[in-house]
């Protein structure tokens, strides 16, 4: 299948735009006081407004605005000083008022962008808009009976709409990952796709390469994992190219992705589409963002993952892979920055990243812990790395010290001193050991001098044995070469 697609993609260019819904993590709902929680008993998180009772009125929860603005600023969007809520009408049992409060022609954010890291390089994807809206409830069907749970109804969302300028299923999935990372980074959403906190619809079309005009698009719904984004979009690209290659035309429609079957099915055609009858919600005054609020957001905005990805490579000489791993979660990046700050050597970024990614993350992973759970503070790990770098202990001993310090929390230097494992670099002291070893093994010395190079390792091993592994390997090798006369 992949080969068929590869052949097709020589002629055809897919064009993909995503509409991504992100639940904002406010304590209460977007327009009423009920709590926002996942997994509560059905319809336990409701109030007269959530139930759409007659006479109820929405009052906007400004905490949601703050969160949405963080995303707007992080994506360098233009922020509208006065945006408006609009009503989007359709009838469905999970929509209690018969309309969703959303934003239409005056959204909060426009013309931003998200940078994605694809194949180690940074790609910029334009965003048409980010707007605020409320979530709907959830219907479940049991035989002939349908149940409505309104716990989710009214949870604040932002809808992020990208420009149609993604050209592969892989990039589409990567955009989802980047947005996932970004909203978690900004602490505005848990973005757990399994809990529906991050959801994606994809608009897909294909056209002959070099063509400017967009082909007829379909909208894919119900894509609720990163892998499904990849699969669903790829499947749709293939489906559309097969249609046009066999002389057919793609129908403008909404399709529902079935992850179990690995295929999509038509949900409704353009003719059946709703006319949402948008108009400004007369219950809600314009949403005003003032300079003070923007100033606060700008001041509190953390350095973003892609900026850190670049900085780690430029300033610390990290590989793209290590840099990418470090920016995959804000906690990792912050730990790394603290590690660098706690370490006296300015050019040790690579070494510090190695210790952190290999030793610390290895140990945490083995226990199923995240970086936030780490009992070893960055300063401790930095001190340990410094002991290795300044020759106090060898790298091998360093790993043992790490293990003990990680388990007990004891300071690395204290462990080193208690165990008496400081590295011996003193030439006089080591010289005596080397002399003893050479004298005790005349045959091997003779053999080495006669050209048996592999015997050098034997002598190093003997010195290490004599010193319980504490001999500085570089000094030891120098001394051995001199004594053995080669």
């Amino acid at each position: 299948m992949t080969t068929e697609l590869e052949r097709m993609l020589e002629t055809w260019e897919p064009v993909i735009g995503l509409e991504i819904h992100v639940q904002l993590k406010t304590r209460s709902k977007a327009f009423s006081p009920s709590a926002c929680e996942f997994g509560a008993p059905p319809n336990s998180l409701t109030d007269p407004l959530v139930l759409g009772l007659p006479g109820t009125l929405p009052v906007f929860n400004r905490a949601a605005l703050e969160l949405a603005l963080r995303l707007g600023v992080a994506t360098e969007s233009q922020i509208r000083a006065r945006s408006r809520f609009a009503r989007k009408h359709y009838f469905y049992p999970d929509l209690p008022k018969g309309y969703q409060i959303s934003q239409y022609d005056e959204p909060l954010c426009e013309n931003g962008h998200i940078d994605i890291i694809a194949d180690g390089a940074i790609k910029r994807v334009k965003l048409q808009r980010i707007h605020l809206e409320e979530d709907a409830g959830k219907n479940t069907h049991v035989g002939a009976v349908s149940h409505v749970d309104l716990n989710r109804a009214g949870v604040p969302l932002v809808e992020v709409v990208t420009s149609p300028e993604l050209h592969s299923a892989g990039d589409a999935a990567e955009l989802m990952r980047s947005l996932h990372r970004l909203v978690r980074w900004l602490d505005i959403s848990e973005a757990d796709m399994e809990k529906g906190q991050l959801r994606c619809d994809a608009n897909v079309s294909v056209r002959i390469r070099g063509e400017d005009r967009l082909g007829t698009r379909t909208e894919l719904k119900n894509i609720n994992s990163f892998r499904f984004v990849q699969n669903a979009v790829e499947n749709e690209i293939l489906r559309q190219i097969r249609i046009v290659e066999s002389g057919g035309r793609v129908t403008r429609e909404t399709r529902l992705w079935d992850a179990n079957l690995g295929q999509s099915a038509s949900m409704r055609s353009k003719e059946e589409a709703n006319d949402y009858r948008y108009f400004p919600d007369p219950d809600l005054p314009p949403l005003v963002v003032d300079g003070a609020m923007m100033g606060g957001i700008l001041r509190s905005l953390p350095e973003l993952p892609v900026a850190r990805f670049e900085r780690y490579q430029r300033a610390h000489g990290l590989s793209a892979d290590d840099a990418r791993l470090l920016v995959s979660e804000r906690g990792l990046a912050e730990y790394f920055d603290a590690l660098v700050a706690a370490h006296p050597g300015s050019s040790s970024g690579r070494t510090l990243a190695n210790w952190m990614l290999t030793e610390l993350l290895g140990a945490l992973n083995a226990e199923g812990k995240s970086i936030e759970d780490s009992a070893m503070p960055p300063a401790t790990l930095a001190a340990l790395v410094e002991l290795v770098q300044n020759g106090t202990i060898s790298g091998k001993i360093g790993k043992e010290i790490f293990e003990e310090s990680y388990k007990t929390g004891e300071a690395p230097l204290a462990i080193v001193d208690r165990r008496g494992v400081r590295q011996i670099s003193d030439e006089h002291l080591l010289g005596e050991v080397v002399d003893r070893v050479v004298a005790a093994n005349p045959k091997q010395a003779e053999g080495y001098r006669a050209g048996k190079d592999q015997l050098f390792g034997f002598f190093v091993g003997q010195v290490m044995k004599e010193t319980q592994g504490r001999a500085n390997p570089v000094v030891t090798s120098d001394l051995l070469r001199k004594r053995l006369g080669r």
Partner: protein
Amino acid sequence: MTAYWSIADTVRNIVSGEITATVLVETMLDRIGKLDDKLGAYLTIDKAGALGQAAAIDQKRKAGQPLGALVGVPISLKDNLVTKDLVTTAASKILDGWVPPYDATVVAKLRAAGAIILGKTNMDEFGMGSSTERSAYQPTKNPWDTARVPGGSSGGSAVAVAAGMCVGSLGTDTGGSIRQPAAFCGTVGLKPTYGRVSRWGVIAFASSLDQVGPITRTVADAAALLQVICGHDPRDATSLDTPVPSFREALGGDVKGLRIGIPAEYFGGDIDPQIRAAIERAVAALVERGADTVDINLPHTELALPAYYLVAPAEASSNLSRYDGIRYGKRVDATDLLEMYSKTRGAGFGPEVKRRIMLGTYALRSGYYDAYYRKAQQIRALIKKDFDKAFRFCDVVLTPTTPTAAFEIGAKATPFEMYLADIFTLSCNLAGLPGISVPCGLTDNNLPVGVQLLGKPLDEATLLRAGQVIESAVGLGDRRPPGAAS
């Protein structure tokens, strides 16, 4: 006579112990029982609730506890005001038997002030009408001539007040629904500035126009009720956060130097000569007490009706989307969801409501929004500007409340004829201004005439002051409607 006590008298008599709240409520319930079969003002009479409240007040008084500003005042509420544990239908079959779990803010405020709720009054379904003939339950008769309508949509409230079946009432006014029935029934009706009174718990008709206000027998009573229901409500985002003046202090003042604007557009050829004569007597009364008249122009007046009949139905079509048979109210079972919706709404809504839902749905269709809803909003802005300009030259605008006195039941054969009954009251809502209708005499047929005063935003005080001068000069005094004789 108990039935026609003022609010001040009622409170004084309760506080002094002249009468107990229980006896007062029993007297009122008895009167309702005798009169209302004929008049049809009440949809629901809350005998147990009212007696319970009365007993509690008597208890409180005995115990020497502090009593509220409206202690023991028996009132009625239009049936689109949500009352906890008391059936609320907005006179629609779609809400047949609905028992709300909460109180509207105005209801809670009245209860807190010690007012006793006797019951819920009839209205045109969802407020859509000018005669109370569009109630899904019953007609209401005008006590001045039971062959005639009481006006609407707050017809039940106006009749209950005029016939002494309560001391005061609350109605709602979207395009004249307080002032027009007040005029037809010889009562005082005041629509406050948009945002003065909370809409939380008011069953929405047109959100940007709806406002709750008092219907009473005297201007002083209107001031007393207004005082209690005004004020900022954090549960209504359109509620104004401005201080509420003492309306009682506005009363009894003089009108010396007050500039009364007389808009040429409201005194054209269509007014009944007897109405014109009564209005002229009201003007003369003001002038006699030192007010000055100013000729003004409100050039966009003729556009108020078309603008209103786009804005109000558009918002109504949206607000009424929630009546879908899913969570409360009427449901007609069917084999699939779409059929359930259409059968439920088909059976639940009356013809006028359906007409307006269709009008509004049409106006908000994709591609028509600019031509209709947006255009209507632009006209609103022009109408508002007309008033802003006029208020540079005058302090209040004086007009007839209605072009004719109460018409006969069934007289308005087409919807459009009915719409014309509100021609003088619509602009006030479109511009968000306060307006009051005060009785200014009777026609030769013994039908009341109302004069309308429109004020600057938030200047209800001046309306009350000028209204009281008219009331004392040309009001109905002790003349009571013949249909209220038991």
